[in-house]
């Protein structure tokens, strides 16, 4: 595990064959029903949202989906979410709050979509709104980075009580290419940037940004099965812990979780 470079992990996280949100939902969520639309503009297929059961507990699931085939990738905009996607996610999360269902999010995006329409429809506002509202949703939230968790586009469904990353996933302020082009003025220095940025599960656990790392199998063919099992156990165990807290404790701890990041002694 530790022999891989950060760039090796970026490549694994982006691997087209890697299981996606849809695959994990199929494996671990029973009786899943997908719901659509933000009730304002449209239905963003880069976000799958719905309800189902994990180990008997009814949950709301939000997953960023990049798609597997070329056709599906196009439909799902390669996992690059538009404002209506974030608004659909928020609508379903607020519905979860109403019915006291825990929320599970699967994060996998190269970033929020930087398009003309996205700006016209308030990409910044949509992300900001999710950050604010998720910080005070009165129900437990678990976020899991399953592939690429890039920038504000990932954070917008990541504010949670527990955040875990799959062993071969990355979570970053920007893609290594974007980072290199800004700070080194050269996008081809992406590998160098990846090593510097501290974007692996191990680095982010050390930095106190994430809580847990979920193991993967070295065998690609078995990985979906293996990770699904790990995810199911992790979610079940974590919900059990979070369910012991009353709403006030839950929200105070969630606030403190983010409050302490980048806090310094004067």
């Amino acid at each position, binding site marked *: 595990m530790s022999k891989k470079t950060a760039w090796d992990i970026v490549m694994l996280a982006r691997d087209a064959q890697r299981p996606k949100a849809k695959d994990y939902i199929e494996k671990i969520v029973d009786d899943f029903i997908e719901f659509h639309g933000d009730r304002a503009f449209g239905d963003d297929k880069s976000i799958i949202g719905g309800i189902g059961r994990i180990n008997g507990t009814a949950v709301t699931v939000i997953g960023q989906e990049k798609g597997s085939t070329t056709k599906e990738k196009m439909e799902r905009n390669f996992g690059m979410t538009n404002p209506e996607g974030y608004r659909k996610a928020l609508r379903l999360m607020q519905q979860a709050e109403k019915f006291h269902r825990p929320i599970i999010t699967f994060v996998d995006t190269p970033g*929020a*979509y*930087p*398009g*003309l329409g*996205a*700006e*016209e*429809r*308030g*990409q*910044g*506002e949509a*992300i*900001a*709104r999710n*950050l*604010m*509202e998720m*910080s*005070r949703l009165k129900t437990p939230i678990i976020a899991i980075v399953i592939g690429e968790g890039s*920038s*504000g586009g990932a*954070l*917008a469904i*990541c*504010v949670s009580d527990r955040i875990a990353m799959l062993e071969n996933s990355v*979570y*970053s*302020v*920007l893609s290594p290419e974007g*980072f290199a082009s*800004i*700070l080194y003025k050269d996008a081809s220095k992406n590998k160098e940037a990846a090593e*510097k*940025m*501290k*974007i692996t599960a191990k680095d*982010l656990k050390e*930095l106190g*940004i994430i809580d847990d790392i979920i193991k993967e199998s070295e065998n690609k063919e078995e990985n979906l099965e293996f990770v699904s099992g790990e995810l199911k156990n992790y979610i079940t165990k974590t919900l059990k812990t979070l369910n012991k807290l009353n709403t006030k404790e839950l929200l105070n701890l*969630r*606030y403190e979780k*983010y*409050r302490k*990041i*980048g*806090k*310094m*002694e*004067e």
Partner: protein
Amino acid sequence: MVIDKIKKVNNADEEKPQKNTKAADMLVGKWVKCDACKEILYKDDVHKNLSVCPNCGKHFRISARRRIAQIIDEGTFVETYEDMPETDPIHFDGYLKKIETLREKTKIKEAVKTGFGEIHGNKVVIAVMDGNFLMGSMGSVVGEKITLAIEDAIKEKLPFIIFCVSGGARMQEGMISLMQMAKTSAAVAKLDDAGLLNITVLTDPTTGGVTASFASLGDIILAEPNALIGFAGPRVIEQTINQKLPEGFQRSEFLLEHGFIDKIVERKDMKKTLAQILELHKK
């Protein structure tokens, strides 16, 4: 009067291009060229006009210090958290050195100033970002100061006003910067829960992680005219969609048109507009 001076400079330009370089050198420090209408302006006139071009109305970018002087009643500003120490969470080569050099050069400590002050006698907590410091980017100090200022507003039951100018998250601090978006937005939620007024003022440019957090979360969102406001940068969008962006895209007027800001306010009217809103929220 300004126009006469400009004409003089312009004529000199045409007649003696050689000598003009020298003349221009002599004038350095007294004259500026408006990057919008290209007029040569006398610096004092611009300054007296609140750093707005007297010719075309372009709102130039201004420092936090000058902004505070324009908005806050004289003698009432009490700065908070001025000396917060820097951190280098991902040990990025040369980052702390860069901060140190920048502090010496600009005499600015970080990309945001926070404090208490009064606007026509109305007490507020105010945060003013400064684009002269690493593009107003948000790292841990900026995120922490804004969060503390919001918490001060909650503690003292005061309205919160923030002037935004930022290129977004500060890359040199990696994920710690991204997390400041979540932290500040969570603080805004608390401010909201406390029933306190939150006014955000978007100035040129407000982009990236700042647009995607507290800047877009005001109860009332004001903007200066023609400010660039957006999530993704215009160049990134052009590369993605492979076409030129329409005129005025991501400018204040565009955002007003699309329903994302409440009102565009010229700099000369900003203080009285804020005072008016504050008065209307008095209990």
